[in-house]
């Protein structure tokens, strides 16, 4: 039999009971862990051998129910799927165990996911299609059409991406990566009739896809490789394709790139800000622009550099453009 490799690890575990505590605190436990153990095994051992009051969620123990998501030293993981030795490789022998959101924790590692589920509900996470009460055949989707979902349907609603997303953290209206992935999942389903309605929801300023800062954290963290930012990009594309993009700073910012590239090959940074904000809106950028100008950081229109072989670029922009705004 293989001898088990073990390492001594110190766990700093977040503790908070909203019924009795004013402030959260951390308990420290030092345990010998084996290379076979996952994070959930350690939580179980702490609960069973050290402190029965420790609370956390677990159910399937197979990485499919999504309830055991927590943060280990800042990285959101599924406790039941994440090997301790992998965490030690990344973070060393002192690991901090915290809920997905310390703000939303009400009992130790258990968080109130109401905001997550509300946002999930907001995007209409179900198929809208006429129902045939007496179908003679199944409503089949071809493999080719199923591929269009890009595995967005693999999401297990664990919330790892949602509670790692900086835009969710800062802007409480922002719908967030998991719900966007779900919005894409249904909008891309050939059987669905509510795609445009859903696209209007994700197209709204402040709550919608335009408020994503493109940090890629959701793609990095997802334990099911759903890649939410890829779906967010698809939703951007679908908004334009469905011709429902509103003429605002967000959409003009995206479209401005195409204009600039066609004109110069490169991006005209100053003109992009003016085009995106409009002639009035651009005024709020004047103080920063003046400071940049003083430091030689603004190129004046007549000095705007151009790419060589601009004719080639112009030709490709013309022939390869697939959307209009």
């Amino acid at each position, binding site marked *: 039999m293989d001898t088990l490799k073990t390492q001594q690890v110190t766990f700093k575990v977040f503790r908070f009971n909203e019924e009795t505590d004013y402030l959260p605190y951390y308990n420290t436990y030092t345990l010998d862990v084996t290379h076979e153990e996952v994070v959930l095994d350690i939580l179980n051992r702490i609960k069973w051998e050290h402190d029965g009051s420790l609370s956390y969620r677990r159910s399937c123990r197979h990485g499919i129910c999504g309830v055991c998501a927590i943060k280990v030293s*800042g990285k959101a993981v599924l406790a039941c799927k994440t090997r301790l030795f992998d965490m030690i490789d*990344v*973070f060393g022998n002192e690991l901090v165990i915290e809920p997905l959101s310390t703000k939303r924790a009400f009992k130790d590692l258990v968080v109130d996911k109401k905001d997550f589920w509300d946002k999930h509900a907001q995007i209409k996470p179900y198929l809208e299609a006429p129902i045939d009460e007496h179908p003679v055949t199944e409503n089949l989707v071809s493999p080719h059409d199923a591929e269009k979902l890009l595995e967005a349907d693999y999401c297990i609603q664990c919330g790892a991406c949602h509670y790692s997303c*900086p*835009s969710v953290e*800062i*802007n409480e209206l*922002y719908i967030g990566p998991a719900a966007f992935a779900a919005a894409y999942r249904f909008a891309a389903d050939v059987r669905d009739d509510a795609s445009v309605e859903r696209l209007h929801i994700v197209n709204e300023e*402040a709550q919608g896809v*335009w*408020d*994503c*800062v*493109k*940090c*890629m954290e959701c*793609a*990095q963290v997802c334990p099911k490789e759903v*890649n939410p930012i890829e779906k967010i*990009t698809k939703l*951007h*594309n679908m908004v*334009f394709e469905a011709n429902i993009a509103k003429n605002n700073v*967000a*959409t003009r*910012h*995206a*479209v401005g*790139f*195409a204009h*600039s*590239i066609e004109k110069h*090959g*490169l*991006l*005209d*940074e100053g003109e992009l800000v003016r085009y995106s*904000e409009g002639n009035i809106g651009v005024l709020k950028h004047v103080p*920063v622009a003046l*400071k*940049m100008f003083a*430091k*030689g*950081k*603004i*190129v004046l229109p007549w000095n*705007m*550099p151009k*790419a*060589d*072989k601009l004719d*080639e*670029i112009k*030709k*490709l*922009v013309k022939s*390869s453009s*697939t*959307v209009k*705004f």
Partner: protein
Amino acid sequence: MEKLKYALFTGCTAKESTPEQMMSTLAVAEKLGIELVELTEASCCGASHLQDYDDFLSLVLNARNIAYAEKHGLTMVTICNTCQLNTAMTKHRLDHNAELKAKVNAKLAEVGLEYKGTSQITHFLYAIIDDFGLDKIKEMVVKPLSQFNIAPFYGCHNIRPSELQNETHKSPENPYRPTSLDDLIIACGGLNVDYEEKNKCCGFHAELQAPRTAAVLTGNAVAGAMDANADWMVTPCPLCHLKLDTQTHHASVAIGRDVSLPVLHMQQMVGLALGCTPAELGLNHHVTKVDFV
């Protein structure tokens, strides 16, 4: 060692709002004996926004840029994290999807070009670390940065998604504990400070659309570095640089605390250690004054 030679994809920012980045890239390449062939025909990579509007057009344009690097038979080197991501992502998608590659090539054929997939794409930071070698940098340091606490700021698009970027980095970067920039600071003789925000987002890409979110992220990043006693910050991304260097007023208002630190481009830091002059490195082009040299 055989002389290193790359096809330089400058991106737009180095030609416009961060001239100092272009200057310092060329100065450092010269010191290190790295030959850079500038891809003057290259277009903008779309900076992740053209992709939102017209994904196919962005693929064609990025494939065209790579095709020019291929014509030179060289690895493409980028000097912007977002250019790195968009170009590497284009390469990944075309190399893994023959149908898409054929569609893109049908367009490129109209201008007599073909994307083959023969050139690699790397960022100058990783060219220095993986190809040139930190040990050799260390040997070449003439002005060690030993009196400075330096806060590395990685920028999202070099480190996430790591599966994609690790296709180009020879030593995989851990997105939760990235080390490349820390290692480079140490190689330059500086002291690398650790702080929570070093691998977080600066907010650049949503500055116009979501100004408050963007400003809070900028503020948190600079505040994190200040709280870790940094004398200055260093970043491999000109977009992070712009955000952290020029937007500190909005950031201070957003987080209710005055934040401001000099933010150097990775190339400027290396250049200082290698003995380049501040003028060669364009240190006078910063909005937040670089007053320690």
